[in-house]
């Protein structure tokens, strides 16, 4: 068989009138993709120093994300879509349902900042630790590995319901799912890496997870998960430097912290976007947080996780009363303060409605506003 080398041609417009009207198998060919697709032909994004990003290709109409997409199919946004494409059953069809102003940037950031729990944690440098410290670290990692995958299951539960025109939001959530797999992995590995093991799991953790998973709307789900749950976990990771008995755990918490901050950044900006464009959504989110805060408080005072954290903060069981519990109380105050401050940034002030015991926690609303 002779293969003819294609003749290089310029990109001048050509006429394609003499093409065959059927394939060798007899299927009709209208060549619409070649001579008539309604597309913004000729768009040429500028390639930046790091390559071609999703932001670079968001040019012209390809960068326009509709408020109310006309289709319910998986057709790529910007394509010339046949009117008879099937309905995929999407229920999140408004931009306010899923969008955040920073979501494309967060996707690129997530891709650029992936790491490996196998390779990037210096596991071989784990030192032999006192028995109580090793137990406490293993308990913290048991609870963390238990809760991490909720932040993968929850987006997975909703993603197939999101209109495909919100592709960048779905892509970002895919990176979150990968991040959570790595978090479940790194904490499971730490529990098992140093001769310890997986310790206690009790109902109080599962109550929070169930509340998040069973949220009735995506707005409620994302408020409970990204803002409340992951915000709380982000602060635990930020505390990692205080609780880590060795540089190995420090590294583990620091790397997880950066990922977690992206998830929280998406949730904060998603809720902000939603409320700015549809203020009625605020009440729906408030209702979810009314319940979520109560469940989170139960989780936060979980005896296994809480006392293990206090042992690590104090530097051992012998210092739990003098140092551990007081430092833990201070950290809890920080966590709840930063949650309330995050709500302010998300445009959903909880200061006058929160179910958190601000008096008991010693939180001054003025501090929240200054954060």
């Amino acid at each position, binding site marked *: 068989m002779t293969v003819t080398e294609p003749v290089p041609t310029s990109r001048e417009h050509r006429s394609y009138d003499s093409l065959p009207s059927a394939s060798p198998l007899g299927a009709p060919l209208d060549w619409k993709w070649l001579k008539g697709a309604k597309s913004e032909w000729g768009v040429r994004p500028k390639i930046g120093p790091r390559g071609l990003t999703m932001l670079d290709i968001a040019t012209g109409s390809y960068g326009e994300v509709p408020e109310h997409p006309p289709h319910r199919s998986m057709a790529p946004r910007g394509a010339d879509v046949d009117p008879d494409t099937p309905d995929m059953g999407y229920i999140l069809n408004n931009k306010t349902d899923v969008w955040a102003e*920073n979501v494309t940037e967060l996707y690129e*950031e997530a891709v*650029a900042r992936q*790491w490996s729990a196998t390779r990037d944690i210096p596991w071989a440098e784990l030192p032999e630790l006192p028995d109580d410290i090793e137990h406490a670290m293993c308990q913290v990692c048991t609870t963390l590995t238990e809760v991490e995958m909720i932040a993968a299951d929850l987006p997975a539960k909703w993603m197939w319901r999101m209109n495909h025109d919100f592709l960048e939001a779905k892509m970002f959530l895919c990176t979150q799912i990968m991040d959570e797999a790595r978090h479940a992995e790194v904490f499971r590995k730490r529990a098992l890496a140093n001769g310890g093991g997986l310790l206690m799991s009790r109902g109080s953790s599962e109550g929070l997870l169930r509340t998040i998973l069973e949220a009735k709307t995506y707005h409620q789900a994302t408020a409970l998960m990204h803002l409340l749950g992951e915000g709380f976990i982000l602060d635990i990771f*930020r505390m990692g430097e205080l609780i880590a008995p060795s540089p190995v755990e420090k590294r583990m918490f620091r*790397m997880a*912290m950066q990922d*977690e901050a992206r998830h929280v950044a998406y949730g904060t900006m998603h809720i902000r976007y939603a409320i700015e464009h549809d203020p009625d959504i605020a009440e729906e989110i408030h209702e979810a947080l009314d319940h979520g805060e109560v469940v989170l408080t139960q989780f936060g005072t979980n005896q296994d996780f809480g006392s293990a954290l206090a042992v690590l903060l104090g530097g051992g069981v012998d210092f739990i009363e003098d140092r551990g519990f007081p430092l833990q109380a201070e950290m809890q105050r920080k966590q709840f303060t930063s949650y309330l401050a995050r709500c302010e940034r998300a445009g959903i002030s909880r200061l006058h409605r929160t179910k958190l015991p601000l008096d008991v926690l010693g939180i001054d609303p003025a501090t929240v506003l200054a954060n």
Partner: protein
Amino acid sequence: MTSKIDITDLSLYRAMAEELNAHPETFTVLGEADMVLALVMRRDEGSDFAVRIRFEGLRCEAVDEVDASEAPLADYFLDGPLAKWQAMFDDIVANGAASGRQTINSLALLATNAGDVRLRGDDPMGVDKFSRFNQTLQEYLDGAARVAVTA
């Protein structure tokens, strides 16, 4: 014992940027970072020192002295008394990298008032970047140890 480094000298921060850009092996594993931040160092007698630092991709691209009043224009800024900053940098120089509670994350986490190094910012998307790119910033700050040795 080395003498204290002068942390109100702009050339220190420029040297740290050069150090980071010259040794990408230490931070490329962390991935690209895009952020503009400011460090604000308050003096009792006024005349505060502030430096604005811009990271782009895998490089620290710009370091400039700015007026402290311009700090809120950055994605976020870290604001504290000069003495607290001096303690942080002295720890970095002494240990080769920030140790214990002298990491920028722990300092900001444990801050309670204007007497501490606080994380501040007006842009809700910007403030998040402190945690999102935290280790890139820490690598940059830890570079002070290497710069101080060669200085």
